[in-house]
């Protein structure tokens, strides 16, 4: 299947965009950079050409082409699948906001010192441990089938899906935040406290603004994961992109709808991955210039 994707039309441009990035390390400028870009371009074209040739000449190719790259099925399922993707986008956007908030609360609770707050820290720690240990699909099942089983009615599957994604991802995101909080030198907190700021004021105005800025790249990384994991909620009956593709697949007896899903995710996720890279590079450059 991977061979079929890279041999397909249209996506080779995405792959070729990468080697040209060699210049961002600043070592290759001017004619050297042009030459190395050309070499990278030619070698990529040759490599992909060879792979495509091998795949196309394989004995099973006509059958694979018919069941995975059927143009008519592609055209028929595309609008439905793109429309269903809107559900994933909603899931993703709503959960993301909730995760950013809830994850931060958990991280702050775990970072608060003092023996009085031990029970709160304990609860937060247990939550993070449990929800990181369990496979996401289990949590989605338990929430999506378990809560309605308790007799709770009138709540849509969409709400359970959001709840499950938020609980799963907040556990990871809180750890990212916490790493950021721990990376801020204690002298910053000491300086704030020495001015009379309370523990929470110091956290809010001094530690968190610096910590959050530092963890934006790893946060974005987690959200790339979240985008993809929105398809997991198809298992509790939310008709989103993957569920819609399954429906189209059983209607047409053809796997092309899954290729459509793959393309949609590639188009959506890769720009975000590139953005993360840009942010990481910028952050490194900034640190390099401010280091003494």
């Amino acid at each position: 299947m991977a061979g079929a994707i890279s041999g397909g039309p249209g996506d080779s441009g995405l792959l070729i965009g990468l080697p040209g990035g060699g210049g961002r390390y600043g070592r290759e400028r001017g004619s050297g950079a042009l030459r190395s870009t050309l070499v990278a371009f030619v070698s990529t074209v040759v490599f992909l050409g060879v792979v495509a040739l091998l795949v196309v000449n394989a004995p099973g190719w006509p059958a694979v082409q018919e069941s995975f790259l059927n143009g008519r099925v592609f055209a028929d399922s595309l609008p439905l699948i793109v429309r269903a993707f809107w559900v994933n986008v909603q899931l993703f956007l709503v959960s993301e906001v909730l995760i950013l908030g809830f994850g931060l609360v958990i991280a702050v609770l775990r970072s608060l010192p003092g023996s009085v707050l031990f029970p709160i820290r304990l609860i937060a720690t247990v939550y993070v441990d449990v929800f990181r240990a369990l496979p996401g699909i289990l949590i989605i099942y338990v929430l999506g089938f378990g809560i309605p089983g308790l007799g709770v009615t009138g709540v849509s599957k969409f709400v359970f899906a959001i709840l499950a994604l938020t609980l799963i991802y907040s556990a990871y995101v809180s750890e990212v935040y916490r790493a950021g909080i721990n990376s801020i030198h204690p002298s910053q907190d000491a300086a704030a406290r020495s001015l009379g700021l309370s523990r929470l004021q110091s956290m809010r105005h001094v530690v968190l603004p610096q910590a959050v800025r530092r963890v934006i790249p790893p946060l974005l990384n987690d959200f790339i994961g979240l985008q993809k994991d929105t398809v997991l909620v198809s298992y509790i009956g939310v008709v989103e992109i993957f569920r819609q593709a399954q429906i189209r697949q059983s209607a047409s007896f053809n796997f092309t709808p899954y290729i459509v899903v793959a393309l949609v995710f590639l188009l959506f996720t890769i720009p975000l991955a590139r953005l993360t890279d840009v942010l990481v590079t910028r952050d490194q450059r900034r640190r390099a210039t401010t280091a003494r």
Partner: protein
Amino acid sequence: MSLDQRSVRTTAADSPDTVRPAVEIAALRKSFDKLEVLRGIDLVVAPHEVVCLIGSSGSGKSTLLRCINLIEPIDSGRILIDGVDITAPKVDVNKIRRRIGIVFQAFNLFPHMSVLDNVTLAPRKVLRTPSGRAAEEATELLARFGLEDKRDEFPDRLSGGQQQRVAIVRALAMRPDLMLLDEITSALDPELVAEVLNVVRELAGAGMTMIIATHEMGFARDIADRVGFLDAGRILEQGPPDRIFTEPTEVRTRQFLDRVIAAGRM
């Protein structure tokens, strides 16, 4: 309590015996795990007095200052500020700290805030000063120390000396009764030391009560009303700078000063 002539002069209105000490420390002890850093510190500081603490690294100078500001919890002993026991269990730590400014060796400015925001953060959040007025007061203070044109810069655009002056202004913005300076010139390039020390001189001239941990012996001799020599967690010897620097009674003090002179730091 022995006061030298200068502090008697600055508190001339009252007889020194009836003035309530600004700081009174008794039998202060502090350990980090098994390492006992402070082994019974007794120190009394009069209002408007400038006390310089000298001694080798690890003698406990910084720890003592951090204990006075309650950054480090103490193991035993008492610290009274203006007659109030700040080590009592029910005391409001945040309220105490407002009145005690501390400046650190490493500046510890907030890198994500402009100079102005660094200075106004605590007045705005702790004293609830409206931001307009906090900004006015901060600008005035910055101008007093020649920093008015740095108001909107971020800390990483300033020299070490400028950063440390901003840190002093940030502490002063809370109108503290007492300033603790913890080796504030140790992280500076030599040519930047003077600008920071001049700020401290101005504060001393304005009557600020200060406890200063320092390696700058010339400065200590010049500015201090009293010098205390710390050795292995105790104040081994204290007195007017002229006496401590010229005829110390303790062998350890003499040895320390000899080493400082040999290193060309005096």
